[in-house]
């Protein structure tokens, strides 16, 4: 069996000058639209699609996929510098990324993010090269019950990643879950909380909520702060990630990449849960978990590696099964059709040059992105030297334009403003926005899949535990809840035993 022949031929395809050029164009455009909040890769690819009609299919797809993973790099920059997460999968990056930036370590955060992204992307491409056909089935064995369990696990993790008071986090998360119910019910067609407005009938969009609560809320809060006390100008040292930073985050990058690769294969929500789980895992593993949210380098490294790995592995269902995993993949699916290539289970056999050409272009694309982003870090951190009086209105303007471009809707602009006010109030009263936004994203995933599963089971919830994957996920869910309680109980019993030697052996056995 000649396995490596086609792979090497694929490199031959990528290294043709035209393909290299289109790869570069793709990643540059991707990175730039990633920096712009709002205008996402899906819309960009749809708009640029006609430009690719005249070129070879493989060249076209190399460029379009470059836009997609390039946008993942660019998205980090606004998350870290301006607290504007463009996608659900970069929400957790904001926690420590922005904290680092405020400490004058934006360079460190962006540098680590670029390295983590490169590493995550590369690990995922290697996985794509070697494992694609084997792991593709993973996407199919995940049905509604499995997504239900995964979403529950995700919502539980939301509670563990926040730093503030538990009660306030729960309130914020509940509000997020409530917001997720707005819109036309996908099962009965009934309108919920839409107040007769058609603009609300598809529910609320992630981008206006995230941009409002994180970005605009922060700007409003800072304006008030500025009035109340004289603020020292933000120190912006061009600090590169030190050897210590790299050492600290290497484990996080590795674990995040693996998690991202596997969860990214799941269509819908995979990347978000991957970044969230990667962050939660690092926080759990850390010796001083209280550093997280206050500028822990691993808190940037883990989710960034995970979401880039997930972006790359989301190509697996498309290229091996013919299933588009997200909106961007659906457009690339369309682009392939226009080029006369049918993306389906037979793509690898019928068009090995295209398959390997595209896969291998990602190695090159990731290297290009790393080379571009390292020097750009120095440029981007200078943004923070701009006086707030100038930076704040420009940020608001970019945010509003970006949000408008998604649906060409004025309504969304009002939404950003409303959520900006909410974000300001939350910050003022000590609520963290993270739990709200993440619960909002996971809430619709949970509700839809829970109801879908119950339809499939004919109303019998026993199905959740009898299916192997959802059963294991639910067990994990229970463990995440019970472990801290048991640990506390054990600690208490030890303390008690030290004083009274009371017999608490039963509880100890359980934890073993």
């Amino acid at each position: 069996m000649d396995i490596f022949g086609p792979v090497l031929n694929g490199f031959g395809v990528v290294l043709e000058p035209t393909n290299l050029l289109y790869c570069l164009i793709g990643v540059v455009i991707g990175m730039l639209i990633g920096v712009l909040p709002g205008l996402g890769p899906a819309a960009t690819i749809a708009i640029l699609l006609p430009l690719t009609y005249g070129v070879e299919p493989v060249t076209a797809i190399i460029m379009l996929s470059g836009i997609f993973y390039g946008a993942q790099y660019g998205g980090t920059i606004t998350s870290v510098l301006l607290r504007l997460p463009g996608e659900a999968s970069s929400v957790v990056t904001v926690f420590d990324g922005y904290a680092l930036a405020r400490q004058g370590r934006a360079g460190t955060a962006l540098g680590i993010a670029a390295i983590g992204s490169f590493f995550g992307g590369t690990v995922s491409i290697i996985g794509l090269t070697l494992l694609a056909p084997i792991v593709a089935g993973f996407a199919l064995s995940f049905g509604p019950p499995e997504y239900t369990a995964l979403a529950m696990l995700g919502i539980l993790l939301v509670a563990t990643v926040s730093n503030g008071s538990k009660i306030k986090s729960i309130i914020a998360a509940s509000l997020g879950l409530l917001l997720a119910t707005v819109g036309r019910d996908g099962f009965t067609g009934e309108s919920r909380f839409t107040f007769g407005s058609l603009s609300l009938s598809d529910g609320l969009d992630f981008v206006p909520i995230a941009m409002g609560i994180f970005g605009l809320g922060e700007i409003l809060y800072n304006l008030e702060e500025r009035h109340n006390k004289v603020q020292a100008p933000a120190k912006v040292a061009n600090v590169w990630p030190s050897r210590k930073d790299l050492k600290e985050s290497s484990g996080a990058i590795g674990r995040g990449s693996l998690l991202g690769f596997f969860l990214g294969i799941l269509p819908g929500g995979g990347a978000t849960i991957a970044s969230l789980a990667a962050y939660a895992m690092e926080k759990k593993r850390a010796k001083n978990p209280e550093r997280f949210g206050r500028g822990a380098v691993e808190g940037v490294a883990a989710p960034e590696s995970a979401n880039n790995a997930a972006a790359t592995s989301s190509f697996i269902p498309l290229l091996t099964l013919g299933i588009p995993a997200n909106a961007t993949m659906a457009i690339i699916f369309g682009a392939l059709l226009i080029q006369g290539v049918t993306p389906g289970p037979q793509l690898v056999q019928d068009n090995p040059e295209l398959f390997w050409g595209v896969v291998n272009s990602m190695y090159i694309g990731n290297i290009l992105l790393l080379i571009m982003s390292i020097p750009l870090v120095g440029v981007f951190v200078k943004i923070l030297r701009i006086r707030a009086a100038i930076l704040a209105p420009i940020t608001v303007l970019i945010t509003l334009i970006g949000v408008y471009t998604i649906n060409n809707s004025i309504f969304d602009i009002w939404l950003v403003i409303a959520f900006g006010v909410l974000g300001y109030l939350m910050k003022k009263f000590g609520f963290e926005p993270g739990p709200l936004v993440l619960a909002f994203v996971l809430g619709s995933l949970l509700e839809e899949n829970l109801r879908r599963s119950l339809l499939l089971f004919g109303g019998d919830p026993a199905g959740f535990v009898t299916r192997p994957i959802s059963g294991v996920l639910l067990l994990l869910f229970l463990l995440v809840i019970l472990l801290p309680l048991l640990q506390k109980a054990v600690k208490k019993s030890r303390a008690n035993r030290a004083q009274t030697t009371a017999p608490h052996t039963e509880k100890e056995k359980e934890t073993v």
Partner: protein
Amino acid sequence: MTELTENGSVLAANIQRRIFMIKSTFSRRSVLGAGTGLALALALTACGGNVASNSAPSDGSKFPSGPVTLTIGAAPGGSTDLIGRALAENASSGLGAPIPVVNKPGANGALATKEVGGAKADGQTLVILNASLFAITPLAVSADEAVKIEDYEVITGISQDDYVLVTNASSGMKTMEQLTKAGKKFNFATTGVGTGSQLAQALLFKQAGIEGTDVPFDGGAPAMTALLGNQVDVATIQLAEAMPQIKAGKLNPVVVFSKERNQYLADTPTAIEAGYDVPVSQFRAVAAPKGTPEPVLEKLRAAFKAAFASDAYKAFNKQNLFTAAENDGAQVAKDWAADAAKFKELAQKYDVNLGGGK
């Protein structure tokens, strides 16, 4: 507010320009410049839309007086979007004006459709209509959310996009007969509430006396994924989505729901041939607001006719497995109204409830 919305109409055209502008701005090392670039792009955007707002004489001699905006009530990348973009590209030279495409997704397209319905009736603002929005969605949503075909001037029909009932190949089920004799309860995946996929399957299963549970998914791809993973027993999806899997032997086509056999799947019988009264297809048309002057409609009709005749557009239809349905606008309005009445009657007759009947 409406003025602002109009101004946004050329935004799509500007996005491209903006991307290039930003690119050049970044190369100038100054990051602050990026903001200025954006502000400049916004200014450009704000100027563009006003070209069309001069009052047009009703003889249509001044038409088109600037870019003709084609509004699409779906996100970029879906079938409706692809069709709109192919049409805009091929019709603009015949019309003698650029046709920028603007996506305004929301409420299955009702948002964009209602908005264009309320726009100025001068032919400068058009919309792609989906038949399901008029004929099927009203069966699932409340009356005030529904839209009526009588409120539009339909310029011309565009094409027909057929639904196919598929099973997982591993089940071995290939015909309606096998399904009816299986004697089991089926979980059937639909592409959502109030879609042709849901209506077609609900009617078919009721008529065939098969017990089934309606499981709505969020579009065709998730429904197909669930079927490929054997999470559900059957699904009804758009032909273009199912075709690669049918060709690869992963899915079996059972019936198509069009009135006539589909040219791209000629060996598969229609539901009607199989003995069931379920004629459901997705038709699309392009329309202007009610009251658009006839000479303007005539010019638009001629431009779209020319687009339909072009080789590039014909190739596009073939690649995406659409069947041309370029009927006259008046006929389209009549057909769709008849379909709406028919579906309502069938739904009542077979006690099919697209909302709440779970």
